[in-house]
């Protein structure tokens, strides 16, 4: 009898899954090991999260044509944060998860060119055209920011700052969530705000 009920529930559950248009994302947990990945960088070298153990790591989801991303590169805010990361011994990884044919997709050459032309200084630009890393982190927008400590534990996820606009003039007025979190984590402190609202353009998921 119980079995029957359970079977009904199961059937209802299956129907739900079938009805849901696409598989949902499960967000990673703060305080737990950050999901590892293996992605080619702008030069074709495979990079893993694990290879940076011992250093704090910033993940920046990017799409160079997204107006929200452009706001932070045009203003020089992103470059300043990357320089600050370098200075504090933090590894900065920019990740492009747009599949081929979608806005934000880059080849290794284009990634090198963009870094050069924007005077950016990420440790690497990782190419994720199958959106594998984006799924692992449940990244929703560009820019979506994550900070991982030297032990590989996820410590921060969310927005780059507090004003969710595309206006360059909002950058100096905003509370710099990512900057504060990155500095705290680099010094081994817990960030004041570990989760904030990310804002930006939707990530162009592979197969979406």
């Amino acid at each position, binding site marked *: 009898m119980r079995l029957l*009920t359970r079977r*009904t529930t199961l059937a209802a559950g299956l129907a739900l899954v079938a009805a849901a248009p696409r598989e949902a*994302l499960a967000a990673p947990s703060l305080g737990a090991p950050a999901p590892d990945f293996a992605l080619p960088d702008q030069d074709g070298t495979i990079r893993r999260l694990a290879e940076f153990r011992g250093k704090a790591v910033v993940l920046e989801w990017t799409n160079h044509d*997204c*107006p929200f991303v452009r706001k932070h590169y045009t203003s020089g805010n992103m470059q300043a944060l990357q320089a600050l990361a370098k200075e504090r011994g933090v590894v900065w990884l920019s990740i492009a998860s747009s599949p081929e044919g*979608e806005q934000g997709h880059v080849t290794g050459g284009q990634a090198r060119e963009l870094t050069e032309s924007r005077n950016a200084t990420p440790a690497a630009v990782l190419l994720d055209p199958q959106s594998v890393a984006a799924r692992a982190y449940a990244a929703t927008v560009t820019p979506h920011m994550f900070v991982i400590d030297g032990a590989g534990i996820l410590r921060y996820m969310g927005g780059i700052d507090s004003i969710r606009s*595309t206006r360059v003039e909002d950058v100096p007025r905003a509370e710099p969530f990512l900057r504060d979190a990155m500095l705290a984590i680099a010094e081994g402190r817990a960030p004041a705000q570990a989760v904030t609202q990310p804002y*930006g*353009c939707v990530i*162009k998921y592979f197969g979406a």
Partner: protein
Amino acid sequence: MWRLLTALSVLLAPGAAGAVESAPVTSPRATVTVVSSVEAIAPGRPFRIALRQRLAPGWHTYWTNPGDAGAPPEMALALPEGASASDLAFPTPERIPYGPLVNFGYENEVLFLATVTPPAALQPGDRFALEASASWLVCEKICIPEEGVFRLDLPVEGTPRPAAASAEMIRAGEAALPRPSPFAVTVGFEGQGGAIALAGEALAPGSVREAYFFPADWGVLDHAAPQPMTLSDGVLTLSLARGVGPVPASVSGLVSIVDRGGVRSGYVVSAAPGPVPALPAAPGLPLWQAIAFAALGGLILNLMPCVFPILAMKAMGIARLSGAARGEIRAHAAAYTAGVVLSFLALGGLLVALKGAGMAAGWGFQFTSPVFVAALAWLMLAVGLNLSGVYAVSGPMGLGQGAASQGGKVGAFFTGALAVLVATPCTAPFMAAAIGAAVAMPPAATLAVFAALGVGMALPYVILGAAPGLARFLPRPGAWMERLRQGLAFPMYAAAVWLVWVLAQQGGADAVLAVLAGAVLLGFGLWALGQAQGSAGRGRRIGQGLAAAAVIGAVALLPRLDAASPPAGAATASVSILPDAEPWSPERVAALRAEGRPVFVNMTAAWCITCKVNERVALTTDAVQLAFAERNVAVLVGDWTRGDAAITALLRQHQRDGVPLYLYYPAGGGAPAILPQILTEGIVLDAIGAAKGPLVGAARGSTI
């Protein structure tokens, strides 16, 4: 090319000074304007403006919580000295899925409303110029930020002059705004799960097609997770999945509800999180219990007064079986059981089909048709007259025939079917739990429960068939059978009386007159038939002719039954909470208009949630009731719970498929104003011409 089109659209747009709609800002993605609700403003009198976005197919803009990506539009107003404006009010958004993500926003056309209050010191003849600087993000897969400056320059007059060109549009914009919730809201989370529950009397299984909770804050919920809905009597529960942000001290947002009529409304909800609201035990009863109860209920049905006449018929059948061969008894029992079970399956199937078609079908729904009830009353009379020996039957009823014949089995089958048709209303009080569960189940389970009901009802005969030896204990055939037969006619007459009483509730005195007149005709016809059966040649044909004529006469009475109206006041009291309302009829509308009174018509139904909420938040407010009283507005309520034909015609006339429908017939004659399906106090006051300033009431009623 595009620039040329843009230039053209600017030229062609009614954007010149003094117009109620600003010059548009146009892109391949969006055409945006600012619209005023008035052509001329008055000092100190608030009016509505709207940021209007017409979006190209595939493109969308965002709600205040944009979901997984995006940003809401912003608008800053530069106003003349002393003027003030409200924040933008956002309409109820839609879920816009993209890949594994879900955004909350708007497609096609959307209006963001604000209320502007000009200074009281203005003088007629002045001008009131406002400048709106707006920015918005419009996204398809990619996102484009856009912005524009919009100007309106309106004349100042003694009283506000509503704008004919935009009034309808602004009204639709107001109807799309979320409304205060009439529901008691509880919300709670535990771990990654949680639930929000809305309690209110209008909520019942089947009253809601879809519901979704849009959280005001990011991070509270996983925006992409489905929110399975559970509906029980009075409570709607949505299961929620937690997001990555913290739970705020007060969880707020909108619950959008699509009612069974397809009307969508948003309700502003807010509650401090507490324990997770309990989900009502999923489908009422587990399937096996529903089946067991159904079988037991079916068995008990054999003792119910409304099945009693059928039992009488069955008793005759059994009596005739005494002394019959085992095979015959078995065949008889099998035929009866098949009749009962198949009829229950047919009823269950019809119920499932009606539910699938979104109709309001309750158990025993066939009894809502006066024609059905009248026909059944006549059938009872006809069977009674047969048992009394007025005439004999050789048809499928097989009542006067030998039990051993083939007709006996067919007769047993139809006896079973008839038993089910008559028994259903009796099942309601005893079977409510099982049937309630059955109707909420998937169709296959529903049918299983109905089959169990049939098996239970036929059980005594199944046992008789399985152990034909039991028939030995029945008394031997003899003269007592004839007396039993005649005596059993009286339960049939009693059943007919009960059915006439049912009909009196539905159709009033007119219906009773029609059904009794039909009964006399039928009685005469069957008597004539009986006489014909006793004679030969010409007399036989005359008798048959008279019988046929009488039956045709009775059938001709049926349409009158359909037209008979229920007793005044009986239905409206329960279906509407409007005070001093009278039942609607076209004649009553005409009579009241002839008296020179304005008339407000409210077409509603017991199962219509939107109707009930409208009554609560818009029609029974003090301001509206006062305005009705001041203007001596007559309120007429039409009850479409059972799909009244006259109301259906009125709905069609106004291009509506269902309720709610609100009409206001002004005092001076002329066509009625059709109000939107979603009402606010302001919309009602505006429609009856009682608004203090244009739309000031609406402004009050719809702050977000």
